[in-house]
């Protein structure tokens, strides 16, 4: 039953990836741009889902990890002029180090408390950036000298393949031995420990993986838009959007988080002609989805298949 779902999803994903890969042939430059952002958000949401859906940790501050990666990359590029790849790796490392510093003491905290610490971490990072505005550009944000490409299609392909690779790796991890153990620790840490699994070690590993992908995606986004700013990679509202995307797409599925991000960002754009009210309407739809279909979009597909 479940293996069918898996393979079906994969079969569905492959042609979707092909269709997406030839996007520049049939999509307007504008939609390529929107999807580029959506793909980066997809990576954010998948990283979040690995933590929440598998390790059972509610991270209210995904933008702490994203922001560290984004600013790490941006600062290195601006002040050391390092090549983009080096900056990205550095950003990913910053994100992991910051993630470890945050997570080590926080791992023993439960539920809302863990969530709160991650939330406060975002606030602190934000103030840190604002206070050192001479260095970081403050609220205004900083412009980076390098960008990935000015060509919309190239940027789009970068984002698409980065997301596809991240999705593949995260899905493999989530279904690997590690994912199995993470799920066990997330579901019942005591029972997992009684089976001999070091819960803290595995949770920390999950946190690092999540941090790595969040940080890389954050860095990529910086080099896509050419700017790193608090409003695009750190604000709590961005974190909220990520969480909502993951839950609406279907928690504990990794791919659901990706689908959720794409659907929500597209909906946001399609409804842009509503002007001011587009976010209101999109939020309302998401609220309805999670109340009526708590399994999310992917859960919905699952249900239909079960029904059939």
């Amino acid at each position, binding site marked *: 039953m479940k293996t069918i779902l898996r393979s079906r999803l994969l079969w569905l994903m492959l042609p979707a990836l092909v269709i997406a890969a030839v996007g520049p042939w049939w999509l307007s430059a504008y939609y390529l741009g929107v999807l580029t952002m959506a793909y980066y958000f997809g990576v954010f949401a998948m990283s979040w889902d690995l933590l929440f859906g598998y390790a059972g940790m509610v991270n209210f501050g995904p933008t702490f990890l994203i922001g560290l990666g984004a600013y790490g990359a941006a600062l290195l590029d601006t002040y050391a002029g390092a090549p983009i790849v080096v900056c990205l790796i550095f950003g990913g490392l910053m994100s992991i180090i910051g993630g470890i510093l945050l997570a080590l003491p926080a791992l023993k905290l439960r539920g809302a408390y863990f969530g709160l610490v991650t939330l406060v971490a975002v606030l602190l990072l934000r103030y840190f950036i604002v206070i050192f505005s001479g260095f970081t550009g403050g609220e205004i944000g900083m412009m980076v000298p390098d960008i990935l490409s000015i060509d919309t299609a190239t940027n789009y392909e970068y984002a698409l393949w980065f997301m596809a690779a991240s999705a593949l790796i995260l899905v493999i*991890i989530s279904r690997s*031995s590690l994912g*199995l153990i993470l*799920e066990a620790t997330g579901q019942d840490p*005591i029972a997992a*420990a009684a*089976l001999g*699994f070091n819960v803290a070690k595995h949770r920390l590993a999950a946190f690092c993986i999540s941090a790595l992908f969040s940080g890389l995606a954050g860095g990529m986004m910086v080099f896509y838009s050419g700017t790193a700013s608090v409003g695009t990679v750190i604000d709590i509202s961005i974190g909220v959007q990520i969480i909502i995307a993951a839950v609406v797409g279907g928690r504990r599925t990794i791919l659901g988080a990706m689908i959720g991000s794409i659907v929500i960002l597209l909906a946001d754009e399609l409804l842009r002609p509503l002007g001011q009210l587009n976010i209101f309407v999109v939020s309302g739809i998401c609220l309805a989805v999670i109340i009526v279909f708590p399994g999310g979009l992917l859960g919905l597909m699952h249900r239909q298949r079960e029904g059939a």
Partner: protein
Amino acid sequence: MEGSHVMAKNVLEVEHLQKRFGGLVAVKDIGFTLKAGEILGLIGPNGSGKSTVMKMVMGIEKPNAGRVVLDGTDIAGWPTAKIAHQGIGLVFQHSRPLHRQTVLENIKLALLPDSLLRLVADPSHDERARAIADRVGLGGVLDRLPSTLPFADLRRIEMAKALAREPKVVLVDEPFAGLTPREVADFSALIHGFREEGRAVLLVDHNVKSVAALVDRALAMYLGEEIASGTAEEVTRNETVRKVYMGGEIAAHPRPDLVQTSGSPLMQVKDLSVRYGKAQALEGVTLDVREGEFVSVVGLNGAGKSTLFNAISGLLPKSGEVVWDGAPTTGRSVAQIARGGIVQCPETRELFGYMSVRENLDLGGAHLEEAERTAQLESLLELFPRLRDRAKQAANTLSGGEQQMLAIARALMMKPRLLILDEPTLGLAPVILDQLSQALHRLRDTTGITVLLGEQNVTFALPHSDRIYVLQHGHIVWEGKPDAFGAEMGDQYL
């Protein structure tokens, strides 16, 4: 196999184990040893501290003092995962398998090394997992999801997971809870198998009876202390154990004047069944209580008494029917049932610990008229004079006996037509039991109240009762007058 018995030295030695939770001493100086190929039963009623001992051995709770020596290494206070590596496994009572993984994958999980780097499981795991599954009787359902399995199979998964780590010592929490007699036999055979493989087994259960056939030795606990140890038979015969479980001498004081065998009963329970997930907790229970009667439901811990009462109070979803005063209570809320006159004084007492005695009582009488409430309060303070002295004290600062009195008094403040008393004796010292007993007696004789009492302690229940039901494994197995109990049920009870 006999040979290994002789040669075996102690695998596990537990000495002077102690655990405090705040001011409460949950475990006081407990010690025992386990040899390879030996089964020890650790028994005690709810709150006796047996589970705490098990958790300390597994490292889930950290002992305040004492040693847990496994093969010469003191592992007391180690983290759980490390203890598991050292060779102790725990079969949890409540199984929480991974819901999206198959049975086979769930077993494979337990075979995985505690390593971050192995993304792909060892291919040999598949074979081993299948072998283990066959052993515990899951061979036919390997590819099914846990949610599609019956309760017993879920427990088999737990068993398989513990086995997969090849533990030297296996701790099994309530091995037979929620199982049918056939399944009990299967599980007994499995546990026997552990012994034959040379593993040391610690069975943790409410009472000797359920594990008597299986254990080599048993250790009985009560209020955190050891009260008896020896063979199952010795423990069963032990005076203190009998006192704890039955309350000592069985004596009945039915009211001969109460002849209310005719007329419609105040409450009828018809074919009541309750399931916890997949576990059958209560099956086809039928009983009735007449106006003014004092009826007891006796049974050991885990027999289903609280489940029965909670179902009557509307706290649990059930099948079957409760007819109250001629009308079924189906569809009524917990509060409606309570206001309708069925008031439960639960086993856990459920006091408002940070509120004063008086506030607790006032909440009980909140639905009464002012004058009525004052009068009721006065009469209850007469009945339980200790509560008058403690009126301003916070409930959680009271002694156990006082808390029980407060719980009863609070329930009585509602002027119930039927008072359901669940295990009022739980964890109380003998002196307090007497006081409580007297209070109940006075209550019975002065108010003519209708009571449904649930008790493990038969001796406590018998003197008050007009009629007795015996509950075992979720079934009513006996019904009759208290004076017949000794003769017909006395020996089978423990």
